[in-house]
């Protein structure tokens, strides 16, 4: 961590994309678990995710990036095929 003499004044952020440095995943108490067999890749969860933490590859969604997922579980709410379930953060 930097000292008060080393940071920009007024809390200004001068670096682009610095929100990646802040891992909001530590906030969650429940985490979403994806059942890839049920998922139809409709992308509703991707659109609704407030933290943009569902990665995409070749037109398919991958596992939620738990480093940034705050555990709001809106993905569960919007999933039309119940491909997502919730587990406690402490559960494996």
């Amino acid at each position, binding site marked *: 961590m*930097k000292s008060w003499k080393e940071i920009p004044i007024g809390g200004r952020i001068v670096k682009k994309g610095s929100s990646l440095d802040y891992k909001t995943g530590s906030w969650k108490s429940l985490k979403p678990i994806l059942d890839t067999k049920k998922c139809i890749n409709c992308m509703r969860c991707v659109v609704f995710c407030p933290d943009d933490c569902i990665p995409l590859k070749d037109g398919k969604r991958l596992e939620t990036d738990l480093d940034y997922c705050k555990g709001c579980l809106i993905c569960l709410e919007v999933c039309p095929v119940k491909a997502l379930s919730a587990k406690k953060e402490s559960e494996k």
Partner: protein
Amino acid sequence: MIKGLDGAGAASEAMRQINPDVVAAYPITPQTAVVENYAKFLADGLVSGEMIRVESEHSAMSACVGASAAGARVMTATSSAGLALMWEILGVASGLRLPVVMNVVNRALSGPINIHCDHSDSMGCRDQGWIQIYCEDAQEVYDFNLLAVKLSEKVKLPVMVMQDGFITSHSLQRMETLKDKDVKKFVGDYKFESSLLNVDKPITHGPLQLFDYYFETKKQLSDSIEKSKVDYLKIGRELSNLTKRKYSYFEEYKLKDSEVVIVVLSSTAGAVKEVIDGLREKGKKVGLLKINLFRPFPYKEVENALKHVKNIAVLDRSESYGGNAPLFSEIKNSLFDVKTKINSYIFGLGGREIYEKDIENVFEELLSNKIKNRYVGLR
């Protein structure tokens, strides 16, 4: 140029000459005249700024913060409840280190509702990270507006310039203004290096800071406001070259050989000087210390100016209910290491008049060391 202006007129005349990019304000007595005059200048094409007519003072200060972050030179004005409604955003302006110059026309806070002068509005927000300058008369209001613009932009802190509601703001006084071109040259062009609108250099103003950096950001603010004292004097000297008047942390009036002294802010200092002249003719060694710069407070300099004095009365035009009055508290802090008697007097709340006789009584009490009245003018 010699002019007859009231304090509000002096503030708006300074605003006309400074010609800020943005003025966002909401009307409130007795500040209204300041922005009313400015709006007339705008309607007459004498200034070129953008005036934002907002729905409240909270919005006024928010608009000032946004405009300042965008890189505009920003001014506003308020009083009393208006300043109270700005309270939250005052800390945003100083916390984000954005220059704003605000004329505060001092008025009592509700309740009971009251439109007349006391200092409870600006004293209430003295810890919000703004530089605070208190003015005695229309001349000081004009001069300190010019100084404040330069100071604010230099040290990246917002500045409040105070004048007494009605007493200063609405009484016509003889004063001098500079030429338009001299003011323009003095304040110079403003270029903000952290403009939110600079797409080539993207920047975030006002992000979240929790355990990680909030403390560090506040320490920077504390350090910068303390150091701004030096810039205040430096810019004051530059202004002196134009006006031939002096800008110090405080004014000393017949203080050097005084045995007893009154310390006071703003317009009351004028009445105290009048009383001092009378008492001096009778051989009484009485003097005045009038504080101009209240934040940052010049503790060491006040100590040096007052340490020879035997008995001091600090006249506060506001109360700290359940605590020491604001000015008294600072003077007492300044003199912690000195054996001088300091007495707290409260006067003028809600515009209650203070007369020469009242001030004479305070000096008499100091000279005889029989302090009777903690309140001046109270029935």
